[in-house]
């Protein structure tokens, strides 16, 4: 047993401590966690405010995208209708898919994570609350501006998957496609920011004793969800970079006559796009695993199996992307591999469905409240969608059904069943946690039945419409082709769903009143920690968790927590803080100081959005200005962090003393940087895949005839420069550790940066000197994109170096208070490694294959 574990177990014997707490303790706690009001409300970072606003914004986009769907269904209700024209219709279906997937589904589940996780883990907040708030504001500002393009006819119109060559500069010369590429590209950044927060939050801020076997399944689901975003989103980030480079500078990644291939886009898009379906399904499965036991009044059957199923789904979903490309003419053996994976993924989904059914059967007679109805509706609809999914996983069937309304029916059964119904169940279930009133049961049942019948009325006929041969994405059809009746039914069904959603919005407006202290409470009788008595500081004290449903097993826990009988009943450092625990067993390690309200992350988010949006409309100078302001605000935001061990170790209760600062691999900041490195590494890996893919398409043009490769001497020089950079960085680290003077630390530190610049810029220059040009061939474009990615890393490292230098000069970084230095060093070492790999790869591979 480690010292930490021994200290924790010793303290656990003294808790709960029934002695009364000092009177001023609660007042200080409330003061520290008081939320800004009035015009300062946007500066709030408390997870319940940010989370609720985040969910609200996602629902707004759901309604907006739903309105677009109603327009489409109006157009298709009768043959040869003329409600909207072809071009508008193209924008409508593109925006409907894009907004539903990027601005509703992913943000909605991420928002639910921000809202629920701290409460469920009994943390005061997630470890990077300003990052969550940044993600929210960037998403809201960017999303709203993106949506308004529909009113000006400037929306993207190439489908939510944006296949080139249709979306490249030849066939889409306007800015419509740029709105998608830059608008969505930047919303992906917001999603990744949220994912970093969730990974570190779930693994490091759980309540003491909540080892992973006691983690609520929503926590497991969000962990898998965030992991999938970290692995999957980089592919689409790289894809958008490549397509935008092709559109803006004519770098021919997708132009066949210059060695490119449009199918590369499909590989990159669907490597993200298929897991995306599971990215939104897995949190929804987490909702179900939390709600089903409560409505059935039974513990979940097969907790360990469900954990395994979530993890298996997370992995296998990355092996399915090619099943969107079965009709592109890929070799049969390749499609066979992915067909096998497509069928394999149905097993873990089936395990979960059977676990929920078994739980319902094992429990008392289920209470037919609104969450129960949406849960059962989910089971029916999702299972139907899953069955048609197995059908389209078979290559010969897919050839017949591809791009017909059968697929539209399948994907809506999966997405509405697998995400929308669970989300509605979750909203009805958890609204009492943050609202003065629960939503109406009576109206809720109307909402359910309207949505449930509307769902089937809309999408069930589409299976037959598809079999009858009606293709997707056509704005009208001729009469008497066998489509008329089915389409009319679908349109009636769509408006029925719309009526259900409108009723839900009405009920929300009537009943939802945001509050923490006077919430409606645990109306459904949940057993997990989010139902503890709450304030703006979350739970008054942080209990030791001994089971998966602590409120069911210890009915007195709520009172004990409220009276401050467990850990951290106050704010001992007079700042916002929560306990950081070990990732597996949740043993307390240290007390993290959490940043509070601020304008800086709001400014950073607004100007990051402005930067991307200005780039979209080619306003280069304003974009540069907005970029500088955004970066400045981020640096100012970071300036206040890394406060060092400015407080003695704190007695958090039961005699357990925790430090208030942590370095090394236990630090949550170091964890966040590691997660970021995985994201950057995945972008790089996707680029290497793209390079190899383009080689395999036209190996005789790799490199194009007449290309000169940089000499081995140049390769060696670049590697030496990188080694020198790493060596000097190590010297700087060594000097800082030994508390040498500022000049002695800064000289090797800045020298190391110079060597890194020389290595990366020198490599790009050397390729230019060989006469290679990125616009002339996909080979040249790929080589320079590798250099471009290295340069992006260099830019980030350089900014961080300047930041750390400033901190060193004013004494904010020193041998003890050095987290800024350590995080910079970690990213720097990764950059050296990535650059070395890319140099060896780009210089060596053409020699190898030629």
């Amino acid at each position, binding site marked *: 047993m480690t010292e930490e574990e021994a200290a924790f177990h010793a303290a656990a014997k003294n808790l709960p401590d029934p002695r009364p707490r000092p009177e001023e303790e609660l007042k200080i706690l409330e003061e520290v966690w008081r939320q800004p009001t009035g015009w300062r409300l946007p500066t709030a970072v408390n997870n319940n405010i940010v989370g609720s606003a985040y969910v609200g914004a996602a629902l707004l986009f759901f309604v907006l995208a739903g309105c677009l769907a109603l327009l489409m269904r109006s157009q298709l209700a009768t043959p040869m209708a003329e409600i909207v024209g072809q071009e508008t219709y193209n924008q409508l279906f593109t925006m409907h898919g894009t907004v539903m997937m990027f601005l509703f589904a992913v943000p909605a589940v991420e928002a639910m994570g921000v809202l629920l996780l701290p409460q469920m883990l009994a943390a005061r907040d997630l470890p990077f609350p300003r990052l969550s708030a940044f993600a929210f504001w960037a998403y809201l500002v960017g999303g709203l501006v993106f949506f308004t393009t529909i009113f000006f006819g400037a929306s993207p119109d190439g489908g939510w998957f944006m296949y080139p060559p249709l979306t490249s500069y030849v066939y889409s010369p306007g800015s419509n496609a740029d709105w998608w590429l830059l608008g969505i590209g930047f919303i992906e950044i917001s999603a990744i920011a949220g994912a970093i927060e969730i990974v570190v939050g779930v693994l490091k801020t759980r309540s003491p004793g909540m080892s992973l076997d006691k983690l609520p399944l929503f926590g497991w689901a969000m962990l898998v969800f965030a992991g999938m975003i970290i692995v999957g989103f980089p592919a689409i980030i790289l894809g958008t970079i490549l397509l935008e480079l092709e559109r803006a500078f004519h770098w021919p990644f997708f132009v066949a006559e210059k060695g490119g291939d449009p199918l590369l886009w499909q590989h990159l898009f669907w490597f993200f796009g298929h897991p995306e379906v599971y990215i939104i399904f897995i949190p929804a499965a987490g909702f179900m695993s939390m709600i089903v036991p409560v409505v059935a009044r039974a513990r979940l059957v097969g907790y360990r199996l469900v954990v395994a199923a979530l993890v298996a789904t997370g992995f296998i979903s990355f092996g399915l992307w090619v099943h969107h490309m079965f009709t592109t003419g890929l070799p049969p*053996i390749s499609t066979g591999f992915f067909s096998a994976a497509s069928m394999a993924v149905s097993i873990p989904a089936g395990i979960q469905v059977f676990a929920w059914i078994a739980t319902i059967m094992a429990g008392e007679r289920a209470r037919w409240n609104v969450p129960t109805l949406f849960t059962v509706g989910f089971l029916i609809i999702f299972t139907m969608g899953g069955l048609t999914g197995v059908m389209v996983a078979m290559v010969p069937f897919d050839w017949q059904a591809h791009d017909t309304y059968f697929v539209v029916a399948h994907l809506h059964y999966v997405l509405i069943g697998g995400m929308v119904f669970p989300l509605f169940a979750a909203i009805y279930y958890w609204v009492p946690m943050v609202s003065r009133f629960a939503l109406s049961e009576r109206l809720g049942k109307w909402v359910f039945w309207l949505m449930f019948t509307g769902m089937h009325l809309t999408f069930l006929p589409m299976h037959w419409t598809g079999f009858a041969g009606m293709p997707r994405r056509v704005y009208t059809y001729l009469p008497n082709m066998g489509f008329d009746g089915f389409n009319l039914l679908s349109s009636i069904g769509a408006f029925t769903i719309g009526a259900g959603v409108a009723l839900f919005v009405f009920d929300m407006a009537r009943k939802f009143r945001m509050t923490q202290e006077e919430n409606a409470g645990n109306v459904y009788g949940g057993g997990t920690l989010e139902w503890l008595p709450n304030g703006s500081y979350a739970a008054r004290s942080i209990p030791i968790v001994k089971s998966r449903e602590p409120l069911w097993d210890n009915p007195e826990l709520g009172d004990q927590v409220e009276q401050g009988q467990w850990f951290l009943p106050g704010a001992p450092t007079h700042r916002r803080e929560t306990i950081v625990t070990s990732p597996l067993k949740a043993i307390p390690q240290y007390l993290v100081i959490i940043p509070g309200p601020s304008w800086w992350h709001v400014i950073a988010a607004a100007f990051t959005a402005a930067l991307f949006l200005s780039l979209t409309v080619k306003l280069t100078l304003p974009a540069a200005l907005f970029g500088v302001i955004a970066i400045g605000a981020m640096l100012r935001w970071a300036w206040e962090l890394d406060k060092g061990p400015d407080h003695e170790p704190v007695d958090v209760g039961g005699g357990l003393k925790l430090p208030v600062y942590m370095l090394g691999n236990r630090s949550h900041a170091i964890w966040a940087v590691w997660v970021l490195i995985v994201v950057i590494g995945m972008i790089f890996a996707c680029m290497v895949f793209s390079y190899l893919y383009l080689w395999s398409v036209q190996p005789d043009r790799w490199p194009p005839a007449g290309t000169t490769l940089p000499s081995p001497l140049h390769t060696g020089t670049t590697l030496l420069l990188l080694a020198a950079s790493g060596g000097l960085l190590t010297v700087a680290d060594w000097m800082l550790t030994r508390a040498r003077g500022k000049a002695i630390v800064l000289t090797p530190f800045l020298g190391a940066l110079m060597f890194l610049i020389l290595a990366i810029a020198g490599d790009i220059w050397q390729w230019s000197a060989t006469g290679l040009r990125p616009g002339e061939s996909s080979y040249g474009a790929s080589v320079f994109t590798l250099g471009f990615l290295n340069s992006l890393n260099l830019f980030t490292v350089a900014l961080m170096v300047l930041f750390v230098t400033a901190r060193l000069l004013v004494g904010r970084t020193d041998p003890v208070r050095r987290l800024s230095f350590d995080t910079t060093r970690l990213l720097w070492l990764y950059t050296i490694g990535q650059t070395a790999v890319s140099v060896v790869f780009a210089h060596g591979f053409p020699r190898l294959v030629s």
Partner: protein
Amino acid sequence: MARRSLPTLAKWAVLLGGPLIWSAHLGFVYAVATVAITLTGEAGLVSRVLIGLATLVCLAATAWIGWSLWAGRLPRWETPQRDLIGLWRKAGALLCLLSFLAVLWQGLPAILIPQQPASHDDLFGGTAPPGPRSR
């Protein structure tokens, strides 16, 4: 002297052993088939034998890890904590079982899908879907 316990990352690797092997297998078989088609124009015998061997190795590895977990032979797990170890054992073993099945299915195309499948026109008549590409 007690042995040092596994670091956290290694413990995760034990839990995720099955899916990690599945991922490596998918990447390998896809890459081998692609390289073979790029260099020779078809996924010939050599590539299929390689895929078969990789499949057997991966099946053996998932079976061994899965059985070890099920039997409770967790490597160097310091503090006994029954529930957490139970999760690792049962969930890890199930992940290995699922991965075993997925690897097995993924290896079958090397045996079942011929190099020159019957053409669409031969089977059904009419217009064939797009012909095979190099990828």
